[in-house]
C-alpha cells in the first residue's frame, strides 16, 4: 500500500520523524544520529553567540541546511513576546520562515502556555511564518490553532524530556479527528514503541530529541526510532484487528485428531 505523502507547506518528506539537536555529546554524534534516524527535518534552538569566546564550529556545519529542512524553535521562551521576537530573529538568519513555536508555562513541567501560544501563532501567521505550535494534548486548542493558521499542530505525548510516552491516547486521537492539518506528536516519547503507538493512533509525524540524545547509544536509538515510526505508520494504514475479551482460535477445528 502506498502511503499518502507527508507534506508541510508544500515540502514533501519521506520520513515522518523530526529530530532535535540538544543534549548530544558532540556535533559529530548529533550528525550520525540524524542520519540514523532517517529524519529530513531537524529542529534547532536560537541562542546568543558568545561574543567573548565563540566556538569556531557551528551546528549547521554538521546539519547542512541544503540537505535538511531546518526548523528553528523558540525553546526557552516564557511569553508570547519572547517567542515572537525569537521567531523573527530566527527568520532573519535567512534559512527559513518555519518556526516551532514553544511558549512554556512552567519551568518544572515545561508544559506549554496554550493561550500565549495561540496568541503568538496569530501574530506570526500574519507575518508570514509557517508555524508549528507545541501545545497540550487538547483537541479544542488544536482546532483553535488550526483556525489561527498554524501549519501543523504539535501536541505533547507527555512532558518534555520525561520519556513517559503517550499518556492520553484518546485525546491524541480526538486531535487527529478535530483538525485537517498534520498532527505531529512533540515531546514525551521515550522509546521506539512509544513512537509506534503515536503513529498507530494516526498521527502524521513525531518530533523527538531526548529519547534519542538521552539513550545510552543515541545512534542505535535513532535507528530504532526510524523503524518505530515506520512500523507504527504501516500498522495504522493496515488497520489493526479488533480487541476481544476472549480467546479466538486461529487454527481450524476441522481435521482434529480424535
Amino acid at each position: 500500500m502506498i502511503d499518502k505523502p507527508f507534506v508541510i507547506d508544500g515540502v514533501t518528506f519521506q520520513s515522518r520523524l523530526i529530530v532535535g539537536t540538544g543534549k548530544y555529546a558532540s556535533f559529530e554524534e548529533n550528525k550520525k544520529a540524524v542520519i540514523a534516524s532517517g529524519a529530513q527535518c531537524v529542529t534547532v534552538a536560537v541562542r546568543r553567540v558568545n561574543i567573548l569566546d565563540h566556538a569556531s564550529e557551528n551546528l549547521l556545519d554538521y546539519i547542512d541546511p541544503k540537505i535538511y529542512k531546518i526548523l528553528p524553535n523558540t525553546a526557552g521562551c516564557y511569553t508570547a513576546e519572547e517567542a515572537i521576537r525569537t521567531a523573527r530573529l530566527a527568520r532573519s538568519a535567512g534559512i527559513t520562515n518555519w518556526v516551532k513555536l514553544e511558549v512554556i508555562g512552567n519551568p518544572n513541567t515545561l508544559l506549554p502556555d496554550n493561550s500565549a501560544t495561540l496568541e503568538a501563532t496569530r501574530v506570526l501567521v500574519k507575518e508570514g511564518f509557517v508555524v508549528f505550535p507545541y501545545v497540550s494534548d487538547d483537541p479544542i486548542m488544536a482546532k483553535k490553532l488550526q483556525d489561527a493558521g498554524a501549519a501543523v499542530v504539535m501536541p505533547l505525548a507527555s512532558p518534555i524530556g520525561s520519556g513517559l510516552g503517550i499518556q492520553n491516547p484518546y485525546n491524541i486521537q480526538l486531535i487527529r479527528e478535530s483538525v485537517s492539518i498534520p498532527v505531529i506528536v512533540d515531546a514525551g516519547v521515550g522509546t521506539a514503541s512509544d513512537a509506534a503507538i503515536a503513529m498507530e493512533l494516526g498521527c502524521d509525524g513525531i518530533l523527538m530529541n531526548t529519547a534519542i540524545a538521552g539513550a545510552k547509544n543515541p545512534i542505535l536509538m535513532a535507528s530504532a526510532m526510524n523503524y518505530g515510526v515506520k512500523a507504527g505508520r504501516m500498522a495504522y494504514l493496515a488497520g489493526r484487528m479488533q480487541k476481544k475479551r476472549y480467546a479466538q482460535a486461529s487454527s481450524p477445528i476441522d481435521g482434529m485428531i480424535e
Partner: protein
Amino acid sequence: MNGVQKKILPQTSITGLLTQLNIIPHQVAVEQNLLVIDKNKFDQVLLEDGDNIEIINFVGGGSGRRLRLYSPVGAVKTKNLRNGNTESCGAVKSKRANDR
C-alpha cells in the same frame, strides 16, 4: 552587546562589528535595539552610542530547556511588538531581567 558592555568605534557597520568579533555573517542574525536587521543591510546599518545589540545563531536544542536567552523584551510596549512596529523601542530594562 549580548549582555556585555563593549566599546566599538563610532560609525561601525554591522558587518564591521561581526568582522571584529570573528563572526561569519551568514551564520547569524542581528538585532539592534530590538529591531531585526535585514541581512542585506549589514553593510549599511551603523552602530550608535548606547545601542543594544543582540547577535544570535542556531545551536543544538530540541525542546523547552530554560536557558538564558537574551535581554528580555522589557520596556518595549507589547502592543508595538505585536504590531510589528519596533521603531519606537526604548530602553531594554525591566525588573524581569532579574527574574530570569
